[in-house]
């Protein structure tokens, strides 16, 4: 069986056994998903490249101790959250030289820089953090309610409640913003 056909868990098992090509397959399989998450979570989506690289560098170390208590993507999602929070904290403390003079720390300031990513991000960024997380995992990444709950570290009932509130608010935001999707 070639690596591309193997399940996420099997790939991680092979990587833990010492296969370097298994790690390459993990990167190939998850890099888009991690990159998208970084684009939405980061204040500056231009740092999404660096954040994604950092996530996989940590994965190269951390997945060797993976216990398979959750799906590998859940582990990657949580790592992406940590890394993006670190990047955002650094941005708050360190002034950016290439930043426009009139820019603020508002997550919406890069609206004109990217097309699709920025439009999506603009709508999602209006949600409270927990609701945004539910939308990303349950709706955009299409995780199961159980996996979403595990990734967020909460109960499944909380996920359902947050999802209900998030979709209601998101619908209103889409209509009021007049953005053509």
């Amino acid at each position, binding site marked *: 069986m070639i690596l591309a056909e193997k399940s996420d868990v099997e790939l991680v098992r092979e990587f833990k056994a010492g296969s370097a090509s298994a*790690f*390459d397959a993990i*990167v*190939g399989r998850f*890099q*888009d998903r*991690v*990159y*998208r998450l970084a*684009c*939405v979570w980061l204040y500056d989506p231009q740092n999404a*490249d660096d954040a*994604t*690289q950092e996530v*996989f*560098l940590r994965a*190269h170390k951390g997945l060797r101790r993976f216990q398979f208590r959750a799906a590998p993507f859940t582990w990657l999602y949580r790592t992406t959250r940590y890394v993006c929070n670190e990047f955002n904290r650094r941005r708050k403390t360190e002034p950016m030289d290439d930043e426009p003079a009139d820019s603020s720390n508002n997550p919406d300031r890069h609206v004109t820089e990217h097309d*699709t*990513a920025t*439009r*999506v991000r603009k*709508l999602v960024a209006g949600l409270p953090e927990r609701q945004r997380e539910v939308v990303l995992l349950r*709706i*955009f990444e299409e995780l199961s309610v159980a996996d979403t709950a595990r990734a967020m570290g909460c109960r499944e009932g909380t996920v359902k409640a947050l999802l209900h509130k998030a*979709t209601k608010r*998101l*619908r209103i935001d*889409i*209509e009021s913003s007049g953005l053509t*999707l």
Partner: protein
Amino acid sequence: MSEDIDKLRQDYRRIRAPGHLATRIRAEVADRSLPRRSWLPALAPIAVAVAAVTVAPLLTQQQPADETVAPKPTSMSSLTRLSTLKPEMSTPSLSTMKSVSVPALPRKPKPDSKQTPQTYFDIEDENFEEKDNAYS
């Protein structure tokens, strides 16, 4: 799920990582997997110490040769030591000295028995004669 949200989901999933990112990650992972050389600077003082310990005995071995060049000590004890260290000279014994043939000294001439020894009175007489000559 409403149509708007479904459209939003499709747009989100259209976002792709740049093509070079996977290559960059592989290169970075390979770089970090290499053994670290950060302990090398810490090893430098140890290397210097080992070198010093190795060279030090060689330096102390050369030191006696330098002492010959150094000025001689002036204390009595050291002078005594030097006298004992002085190489022995071949001094001839008295017996060997006797056997050396030395040319004989010339003989003392014997005094003539007929010739009267010059006495004090003779000298006086001569002086007396000179006096006489002076008055004459």
